[in-house]
């Protein structure tokens, strides 16, 4: 398979958020600011790449019927590693993402790539796939976070553009996440098909 195509499909053609609509829980939950979205995206990317590597390596040793529990254990281990490392070295980000880090385990994007791609492809392709999908996920989360942060509190990446008192609070709260996601998805799909 063409590796470049394999890598870039995560950004546009098969973007996990805007096209496949996978991993909606962290997508809607943590994107109240661009930096949170980026942090969550990169944490997920790490887990995705690592679990893709391990799944691609051990796929031949795992009996068909226990593959899902095996994948989950592998993914959960990497998530716990991310959680502990982040708590130790990036406590501020850990606090902001909080509950959503352990929830990467049940992010269907990670399990989905392990099951649909890594368990059927070679190690190299799986790494590229994990990177592309993870960075595409990060991009989508950052975009969503930036839009919500801008409309909600007049900032992007903490850089103040206009007064916070003119922000629309709804964009910081859950309904704003759905609204922004809906419009962004519509926009991306329009561009994608054009």
């Amino acid at each position, binding site marked *: 398979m063409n590796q470049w195509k394999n890598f870039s499909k995560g950004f546009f053609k098969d973007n996990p958020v805007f096209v496949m609509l996978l991993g909606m829980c962290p997508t809607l939950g943590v994107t109240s600011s661009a930096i949170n979205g980026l942090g969550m995206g990169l944490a997920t990317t790490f887990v995705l790449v690592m679990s893709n590597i391990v799944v691609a390596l051990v796929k031949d040793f795992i009996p068909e019927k226990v593959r899902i529990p095996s994948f989950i254990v592998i993914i959960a281990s990497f998530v716990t590693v991310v959680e502990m*490392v982040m708590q130790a070295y990036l406590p501020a980000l850990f606090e902001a993402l909080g509950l959503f880090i352990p929830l990467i385990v049940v992010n269907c994007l990670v399990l989905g790539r392990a099951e649909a791609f890594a368990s059927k492809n070679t190690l190299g392709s799986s790494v590229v796939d994990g990177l592309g999908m993870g960075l595409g996920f990060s991009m989508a989360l950052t975009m969503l976070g930036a839009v919500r942060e801008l409309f909600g509190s007049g900032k992007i990446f903490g850089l103040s553009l206009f007064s916070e008192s003119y922000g629309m609070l709804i964009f910081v709260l859950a309904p704003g996440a759905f609204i922004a996601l809906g419009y962004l998805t519509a926009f991306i799909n329009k561009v994608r098909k054009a």
Partner: protein
Amino acid sequence: MGKKVSSLSNMALTLIIITMVSGASLGYIYKLTKGPITAAKEKKQQQAIQLVVPDFDNNPTQEMYKIAAEDGDSLKVFPAKKDGEVVGVAIESVSHKGFSGDVKIMVGILPDGSIKNYDVLEHKETPGLGTKMATWFKPSDEEGSGSASGNAFFNWMFGIKSGGSGGNTSIVGVNPEKTDLTVSADGGDIDAITAATISSRAFLDAVQKAWSTYNEKADSYSSATTKTNNTEEGGQQ
């Protein structure tokens, strides 16, 4: 290639190996990160203490002691001393009246009973509303991210006037002995955060709890604050 057969022994063996390997590696990582995690937590606590009390030269974390609040919580008291004299105390207080979950704060009290500063340690209040408590109750020139913020150009373009929130929102320098530390909607002296009265109540509750518990239980302070406190606090709690 060829997948392994899904026989019972095969499946059990695979799962046992996978869980054992992941368990072992997690244990190893845990050992590696244990030190930095405690260090990061301690650093945060240390920073909060430094923020809320005047300069000190002792180690408040080592001299920490606990006092029991009326409602059964135990509050941590970090005494800050300079040349052996108490220059203030940092009290870690908590309120269960938050909008969602507990509100945990660090509040610094000076020997004369007034509040030096505070820091919000932990809360789960609504982003954009209750979260403003981190700056709302400080004097308005410190409000930073509050109403006076924003890019000067955009503020000019949209005709946004930066100004304080008006009213009495600051608890810094306030002595709870003379000031009613409840939101103005409840007849108190402090204006609540706009659209976040419950969070404001919780915050002030935590401050008040720290102050009155400390004045009742601790004897290292001047007796003057202790005396007046007993007569006034009874009705408020």
